[in-house]
């Protein structure tokens, strides 16, 4: 198992804090870390997740309406995970209104204290002047699609973002998988500007096979809805094993 884990394909595993309960979401995070995920993406639930599909929307609604998970509860959960796994790369995701309501400055300070280096806010244009984050190790993550204009991409590349989240295609999370043919050009341009800039691709990746396909062009495959569904179906362990196996086979073929 250890050997398989070390060869697993690079995955960013997403979960909604507070779904199905706050405690269980912390346990799920630990399961992902034990399975060797490259990045753990923790979503602070919001009542109206405008960019998410039905699976994540339902999970957010459960967390907000039935579990009553606050921003403070979510940050406490992140602290619990951080304290236990100081080396794990963690990205935090939420919607702009929750960060705004909590207070941007206080939120950024908390991220710094928790050694969170990346914040994903899909409904916040990353260059909005009122949200420029100064004097912080925290960077926003641009969430781009294949229709990003050259001018826009060059503007973002000139800023200091170091992780780019690309939408696999024009869709919401949890849709059918497809990879937009124009994405390769966007990835090439990002890598050309600096090989140190990482690229993750998400939206609609449901099978480990699709995840493997994505990592042929990106640094990490981002999986969200499919993991929640696997958890709901009681097949999460199988799913994570498959991810590891596929990584291992891939490794074998290439090696």
């Amino acid at each position, binding site marked *: 198992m250890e050997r398989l884990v070390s060869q697993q394909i690079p995955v960013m595993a997403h979960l909604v804090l507070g779904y199905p309960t706050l405690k269980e979401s912390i346990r799920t995070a630990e399961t992902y870390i034990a399975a060797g995920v490259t990045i753990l993406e923790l979503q602070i639930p*919001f*009542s*109206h997740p*405008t*960019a998410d599909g*039905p699976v994540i*929307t339902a999970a957010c*609604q459960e967390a*907000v309406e039935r579990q009553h998970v*606050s*921003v403070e509860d979510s940050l406490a959960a992140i602290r619990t995970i951080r304290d236990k796994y100081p080396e794990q790369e963690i990205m935090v995701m939420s919607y*702009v*209104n*929750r*960060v*705004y*309501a*909590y207070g941007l400055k206080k939120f950024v300070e908390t991220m710094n204290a928790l050694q969170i280096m990346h914040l994903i806010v*899909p*409904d*916040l*244009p*990353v260059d*909005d002047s009122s949200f420029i984050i100064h004097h912080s190790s925290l960077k926003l993550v*641009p*969430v*781009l*699609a294949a*229709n*990003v*204009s050259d001018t*826009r991409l060059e503007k973002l590349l000139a800023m200091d973002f170091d992780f780019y989240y690309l*939408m696999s295609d*024009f*869709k*919401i999370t949890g*849709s059918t998988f497809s990879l937009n043919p124009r994405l390769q050009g966007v990835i090439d341009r990002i890598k050309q500007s600096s090989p140190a800039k990482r690229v993750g691709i998400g939206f609609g990746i449901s099978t480990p096979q699709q995840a493997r396909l994505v990592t042929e062009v990106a640094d990490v495959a981002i999986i969200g809805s499919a993991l929640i569904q696997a958890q709901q179906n009681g097949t999460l362990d199988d799913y994570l094993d498959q991810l590891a196996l596929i990584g291992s086979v891939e490794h074998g073929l290439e090696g």
Partner: protein
Amino acid sequence: MDTTQTAYKDLILQSDGYFGPYGGCFVPEVLLPGLLEIAAAFDELKFDAAFLAEFHDALHTFSGRPTAFTPLPRLTEAIGGAQLFLKNEGLNHTGAHKITHCIGQILLAKRLGKKRIIAETGAGQHGYATAAVCARFGLDCTVYMGRKDYERQRPNVYWMELLGTKVVPVEDGSQTLNDAVIAAFKDWVANPESYYLLGSAVGPHPYPAMNTFFQKVVGEEIRKQCIEATGRLPDYCVACVGGGSNAMGMFYDFLDEEEVGLIGVEAGGRGVLAGEHAAKVQHGQLGIFEGYHSYFLQDGDGNIASTHSVSAGLDYCGVSPILAYLADEGRVQFETASDEAALAAVQRLARMEGLIPALESAHGFAHAFELAATLPKDKIVVVNASGRGEKDLFITMRHFQEESLIAYAKHLLK
């Protein structure tokens, strides 16, 4: 006396999306190219004489503008205060002011070569108007409508379908306007080549400024008609406020004349408790949602709260960033009217003046009746009847004549 007046009209017309601290363009990057394309086209077309001529021609020949400006003599006498007038936007084709910005936007979408339109609707008035212009100008149309609104505004669903539009009931959340907006945005993310015809003075830039620009014809007509009828400008303009499109349409032309009082009336619903009303300016908190910074009804921790109003068109969590700015500036005053007061206003206007306003507009009348009573007889109060009340048949009938409604339903099912 302070003689310097803020030039609000120019500020709105020339805005890059911000009105004081409000507005902006808080959307996923995937939507930015589409919004920039619309904003660029709007910046050009708002000064394009040929485009504006085409717009005004369609308003006249297709929608029947100008709409009537009607004195309300019997109500004025009964109340015994200020003189009451009504701007009858309900006489527009499809029954409300909504068709005005739909005509403007569809002409813009045509210029951009768009083939498919996406829209959201609450009461169904914006959806119905969008469906009509799409049929008229030959574009495909999909309208999202919260399941609750889909059920309570069934006549408008039928009209939209008759016009060839696909109406999609939205099962998420509270199943009202807010959820329809989100579903429409999600469709646009999946289909960025489509045109999103947003139906109020809300949302990301350029919608608040653009819909205000198209709707400002309402206030321009009121100016002319009020001078013709009375020889002067109104002392007060009163409009209901859901998102704010009819209010901005009525107010815009008077913004720089401080002697004209501007009053927005929000839905007071069943009371002041959270979830029982839709009064954003008076009970909301600052937030950023659905693309813009403004006042929203929230839970205190950044979650959007549920709303209630007897009128689907006012049953919405946010308010135009332009109105939020004008409220802070003290230029527009905000009041509330309850569900009950709105229903009573429908009945009073029907009995006394032979006019049946939409439940949304009735909120404006409910407040205007109270206001008029406090004013001397030489004052003029104009109320925007943003829509007509036929679409509310099953809601008002349930309230006024429930037994007849049940008997009619049984008869239909025979």
